[in-house]
């Protein structure tokens, strides 16, 4: 399994640390216990396309938002959380290899 880091390119799975579902990006602002329960514990847990957070631990030390399929392990998108989690925008757009369009 390889993830294509927007900064480092395709890298071996062992360089990355899996944190969990993208729900972790939606940290509750207030103190509502139900919101915190949902944030920390409840998950859609889809059999199919999912979005989750990976950390490029031995690479660029960036948090990545990965869109992938939990049944086939195919990866369709990897984006920087720091760039708003949208590939093709923000920082990710500025690091295309030289000569690419």
């Amino acid at each position, binding site marked *: 399994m390889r993830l294509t880091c927007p900064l480092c390119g395709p890298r071996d799975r062992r360089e990355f640390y899996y944190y*969990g579902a993208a729900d972790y990006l939606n940290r509750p602002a207030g103190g509502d216990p139900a919101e915190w329960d949902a944030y920390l514990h409840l998950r859609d*847990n889809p059999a199919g396309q999912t979005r989750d957070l990976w950390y490029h631990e031995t690479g660029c030390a960036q948090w990545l938002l990965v869109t992938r399929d939990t049944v086939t*392990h195919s990866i369709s998108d990897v984006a920087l959380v720091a760039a708003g989690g949208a590939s093709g925008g923000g920082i990710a757009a500025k690091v295309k290899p030289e000569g690419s369009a």
Partner: protein
Amino acid sequence: MQYSGFRVIAEGLFGNRGWKPAWRDPTPKPAYDAIIIGGGGHGLSTAYYLAKNHGLTNIAVLEKGWIGSGNIGRNTTIVRANYFLPGNSEFYSHSLKLWEGLEADLNYNVMHSQRGLINLFHSDGQRDAFARRGNAMVNQGDDAELLDREGVRAHLPYLDFEQTRFPIYGGLLHRRGGTARHDAVAWGYARAADRRGVDLIQNCEVTGIDIENGRVTGVQTTRGAIRAKKVGIVVAGRSSQVAAMAGLRLPIESHILQAFVTEGLKPVIDHVISFGMGHFYISQSDKGGLVFGGDLDFYASYAARGNLPMVEHVMEAGMTLMPMIGRAKLLRSWGGIMDMSPDGSPIIDKTPVDGLYLDCGWNYGGFKAVPASGWTMAHLMATDQPHEVARRFRLNRFATGHLLDEEGTGSQHNLH
């Protein structure tokens, strides 16, 4: 048909022509008193104890594949009662007691072998933690003995005691721990439930849960609609999908766990050995294969197959612990889908939908729990009250903060 040694001999004398199928293959009825979704170990034992302990025999088990085709048919078969926390301790103690009488109860040889389990420790701090755990086990009424290094060596002379990273300081011996034949547990419960009138309906996938006015009324399946006032969801790694049919979002994330077996060897490992620092555990099956497993692949997955980095890690852990294992050839590996909960402990509880019950969150420790899970889930479904030994396995404990975090690793699903 009652199985016995005499029966085996008699059948042998007459060409084995008298054996009958171990359970019926019934057509689903339009309605049952209760339906269990999931024909794995936990679902089958729930059905069996509903019939045996509570007299409910007009019940069906709905299985989308065939009996024993999920995790009950492929796991590392370890049976133990060495838990520490109140809430877990009494539950697994109850389960082990049920295991000890299971073969006579089911009239089926599940090859339960109490060969002894040794958990290794590698530092003074770990020794203290295991001494404390052992005391908790003894206080629960189970058995535990703290072994020093020489005590472990007397049992397991082939380990590498002087390894520099994790030198072996000793181990916690749980003599009543051991293994059982996983398929036989599924078959034994299936046959025993069938003999009490339970309909085991295979190749029947649930596609919807019918709810009227907040109360369950039945299920939709690939073999038609079936009505029931009580429905239990006992589907392990698929819990989130089935619960979603009732509008529920669960504190579960499904992860992949790999296990491995070598070619058959002559007897070489007598015990179950757990090497926690490498997250490696091993025993030898009665066929001779070394059966061992490691940790999760760590990312959410339904693929039922893992990736190579964890294969490599498990092999390294095995070589670290017992270099002799390098001489064995790996025969095959497989991956199972684990229903990981945020505290590593299971859920056996009612849901917000009346008549709908949930049994899930077994992480990767569900096999040893099969008898007690069924026993307590049956109690819950029959009486609407949690069983005494499963009273802390509540669905809302994450919201209320009453976690059962046996390993103390926090609320991340993949860290248990």
